[in-house]
């Protein structure tokens, strides 16, 4: 049972890292950023390419994370920025961007799956009857560190405070002289960096392909709704909840219905608490 819980936490951390990126962008700009899956794909391929070129894994991982941040900012500058006054267009633009990014990956790397080797592939942690592969332990550490850093940024810095203000009331934030474009760009940068973190966490466990992140994106959107749109800590809570429920469902009922358990939780939360776990009347980031 503890083993199932730890596996669920691993899955939950992955969902949380992806979902926080999505909810941050949604909170600040009200964009359902489907292109996030494409950013994860390009970040994963970048990590793989740099690693294949003989660079140390840490350098390859940093390159992947940086790629995630850069591509994410590009999507904001080249696409989302131009439709800020036309929010109804955002889902279509997001889907279009996803297709573009996936096809860039397909063109550059082909459709065959690639596996990413890490220095901790062969590490196996054992404690109290629980076995945790090194790649999963690394993800949990990376997720906690990333989300902790994000928490500090949002709560302890002027930039983070401004981002939370924009997420709660964009016009009121503008009246105080807070520059909106900088906030949008920052939200996309952070989301992209988290996408990069998700990529290097996801790639060693699963295979890298242009469509590798489609399923995790779907789960992450479930998490975003579970946690309350725009709520970072709702996304963390929702991610862990979904990961643990899916883990237990797969272990004790059937792994064939793993995703279905997540959707069941979503339906229950929407019936019992329609605004999500951590949502309040006003949207918020943090």
């Amino acid at each position: 049972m503890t083993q199932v819980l730890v596996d669920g936490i691993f899955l939950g951390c992955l969902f949380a890292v992806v979902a926080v990126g999505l909810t941050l962008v949604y909170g600040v700009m009200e964009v359902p950023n489907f292109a996030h899956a494409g950013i994860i794909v390009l970040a994963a391929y970048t990590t793989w390419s740099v690693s294949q070129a003989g660079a140390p894994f840490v350098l390859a991982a940093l390159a992947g994370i940086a790629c995630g941040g850069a591509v994410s900012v590009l999507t904001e500058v080249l696409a989302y920025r131009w439709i800020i006054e036309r929010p109804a267009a955002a889902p279509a633009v997001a889907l279009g961007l996803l297709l573009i990014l996936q096809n860039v990956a397909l063109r550059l790397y082909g459709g065959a799956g690639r596996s990413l080797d890490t220095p901790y592939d062969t590490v196996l942690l054992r404690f109290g009857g629980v076995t945790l592969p090194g790649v999963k332990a690394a993800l949990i550490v990376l997720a906690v560190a990333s989300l902790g850093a994000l928490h500090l940024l949002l709560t302890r810095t002027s930039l983070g405070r401004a981002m939370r203000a924009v997420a709660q009331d964009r016009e009121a934030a503008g009246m105080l002289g807070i520059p909106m474009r900088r906030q949008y760009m920052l939200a996309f940068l952070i989301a992209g960096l988290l996408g990069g973190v998700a990529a290097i966490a996801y790639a060693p466990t699963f295979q890298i392909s242009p469509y590798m992140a489609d399923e995790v994106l779907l789960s992450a959107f479930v998490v975003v709704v579970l946690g309350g749109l725009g709520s970072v800590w709702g996304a963390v809570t929702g991610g862990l909840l979904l990961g643990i429920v899916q883990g237990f469902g797969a272990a004790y009922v059937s792994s064939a219905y793993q995703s279905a358990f997540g959707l069941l939780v979503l339906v229950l939360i929407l019936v019992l608490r329609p605004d999500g776990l951590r949502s309040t009347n006003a949207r918020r980031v943090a």
Partner: protein
Amino acid sequence: MLTVSGLTIAFGATVAVRDVALTAAPGTVTGILGANGAGKTTTLLGILHRVPRRTGTVVLDGRDVTGHDTGALVRAGIALCPQNRRLFPNMSIADNLLLGAYGHGRAVRRERLARTYERFGWMRERADEPAGRLSGGQQQAVAIARALMSEPRLLLLDEPSSGLSPVAVQEIAGLLAEITADGTALLLVEQNVGLVRRLCSTAHILAHGRVTGAGPVSELLTDDTVSDAYLGTLT
């Protein structure tokens, strides 16, 4: 000293404010009066460049700031305390206040926060409480204090008495008198005639986006036609 001239604001084909001219001197409260939909809020938003201006110039202390964006205008010394307060309800009082000094260094922000707490002791005691939990009067005080965190030379106030109890209105009136005494120019949009009488030395009457009258409040508000048409029955 604020001098606005020829200010015209339009949303597509609809002209909301047409050729408005007004001034606000340091250490005085200048009223903008008018019925709902007259263009009072739009005028304030136009001065702060929150709505697109078609024509007009905005000069602050002899410096033409017409083309500046809102951030530059705030740094130049204009702050807005908006209608309905527009605090960030899920953020703490301290965070709301610090946002008023956005763009300044950490040391400046902390120093101004300390000065705000000296003026409003209760805000220090409740600094970590979400602003949304405060009463209407307290929220208005935080909204004004937040605007003051940028240390403005011109404070734009949009109906600060709206939705407040008579006691809270008196407290806000006292606070605004203090701010004026410090030498800050106040441009006050208000429908509470008692507050206008108490605070404003001069006023401009807006109707259908145009200035239809201007002068000392003592003269404007003795004209029953003006009072009844734009402000309702005097109290």
